[in-house]
């Protein structure tokens, strides 16, 4: 369903993603883990047509994001790490715009929007402006919106950040259901290891732009001779705390500015 081959992204001298190859099968739940600044979000951006790779190729549902962006975009839904809602619109209007942009027919759009808003418990607030929402509510709305068009592949970039355990469980239950009933492929990143352990069928760990391990949770634990995924993760990526994320974005910004001058 997703196939990345020798994917590389350079920002100036900085190698954000370095010769990454992996495959996600149809209907699989796949976790993409790594410390801050490891290259997770950059990889997702290349998979989802937002960034063009420096080299290497991607096939998403058989489509190439660089040459056939529109076909590719029809195949997936995404919940971004940072907010992408329109604060000046209501929850309902945000859902409507999304549904129309993705060609969801009228009746179905209204029915599903209602179902999803009820599911994330925002139905009674559907006519409130998003700027009045708390962080957690925005997150829930964002998730509901990403699911509206029932895509073949769903990308979730740290979807559960800032959610309480109740909502988190609720969300994963829904996603599993979707995965089971519609065969939706799920690709997600998270910093909660127990979440990856519990939900994902296979896990890839990326660090310094390179994939350092791929396999089931059990395989990763065996490989590192540890008893939990968290320990396996630490064994693979070391215990040094990263401040790479800021640096990477800084570099990116400097680059962009330099390029634009």
């Amino acid at each position, binding site marked *: 369903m997703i196939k990345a081959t020798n994917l590389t992204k350079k920002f100036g001298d900085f190698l954000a993603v370095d010769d990454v190859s992996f495959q996600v099968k149809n209907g699989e739940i796949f976790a993409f883990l790594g410390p801050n600044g490891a290259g997770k979000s950059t990889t997702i951006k290349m998979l989802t047509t937002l960034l063009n790779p420096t080299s290497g190729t991607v096939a998403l549902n058989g489509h190439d994001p660089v040459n056939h962006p*529109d*076909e590719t975009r029809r195949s997936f839904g995404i919940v971004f790490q940072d907010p992408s809602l329109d604060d000046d619109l209501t929850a309902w*209007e945000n859902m409507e715009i999304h549904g129309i942009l993705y060609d969801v027919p009228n009746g179905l759009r209204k029915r599903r929007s209602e179902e999803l808003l009820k599911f994330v418990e925002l139905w009674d607030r559907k006519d409130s402006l998003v700027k009045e929402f708390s962080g957690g509510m925005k997150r829930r709305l964002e998730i509901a919106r990403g699911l509206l068009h029932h895509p073949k592949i769903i990308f979730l970039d740290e979807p559960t950040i800032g959610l309480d355990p109740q909502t988190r469980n609720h969300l994963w239950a829904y996603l599993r259901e979707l995965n089971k009933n519609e065969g939706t492929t799920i690709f997600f990143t998270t910093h909660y290891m127990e979440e990856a352990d519990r939900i994902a069928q296979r896990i890839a760990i990326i660090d310094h732009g390179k994939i350092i391990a791929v396999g089931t949770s059990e395989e990763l634990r065996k490989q590192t001779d540890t008893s939990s995924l968290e320990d396996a993760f630490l064994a693979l990526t070391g215990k040094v705390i990263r401040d790479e994320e800021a640096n990477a974005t800084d570099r990116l910004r400097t680059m962009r500015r330099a390029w634009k001058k």
Partner: protein
Amino acid sequence: MKKIYILWLRQIKKYLRSKSRMIGSLAQPLLFLLALGYGLGSVFQQAGQGNYLNFLSPGIIGMSILFTAIFSGIELIWDRQFGFLKETLVSPMSRFNIMIGRTLGGATVATAQGVVVMLIALIFGFHPANWLMVIPAVGIMFLMALLFTSLGTMIASLLDDMQGFQLIMNFLIMPLFFLSGALFPLQGLPKALAIIARIDPLSYGIDALRALLLNAGHYGLGMDIFILSSVTLIFLWLGSYFFKKIQV
């Protein structure tokens, strides 16, 4: 079509909901009409140029369209920083259509702003020579709005954040306004200024409004419309070109 419509509608809704922005953008034209329209009226009259408020009003309408339209275009930076742009960019809608939807929305808002300023000018004593010409005048306003929204979009596609904004304000928007003949007649200008005014697309918009509303054009209505349409097409093309190149 429906997708373009929904992006258009989004912009209209946002505009109608931001009361502060609406009121704020009316304060400036009011001030100009009051201070210049009334303040310089007698001097203008004595110089044999007629009623200054009448002369000034199309200029102030043009000014408010210029400001609102360029800001609507530049809002793109905002959308990029606060994320909504990403939502549209990953959707199966062509970049060209996204740009068109946004631009039409911004242009409609700017046109509405122009019409409101025209109504205010009427209260202040602006008197069109021919009331029927108000309708084509609104058409001209829309053309101007389209032109400057595309220009704003183009600028926003090239900028990373709001830091460059002050530069744009001082080196682009202000000169476009002050050198356009919004405030002074285009006849008998010093050569340099006459040439600059000829390069400034806003001059043609305001001139067309004067031709329609006051029977007092300088370049000629046909020339005005020709230049406005051509520059709009060029800016739309450039705007969509740069918009397509945005990477988030």
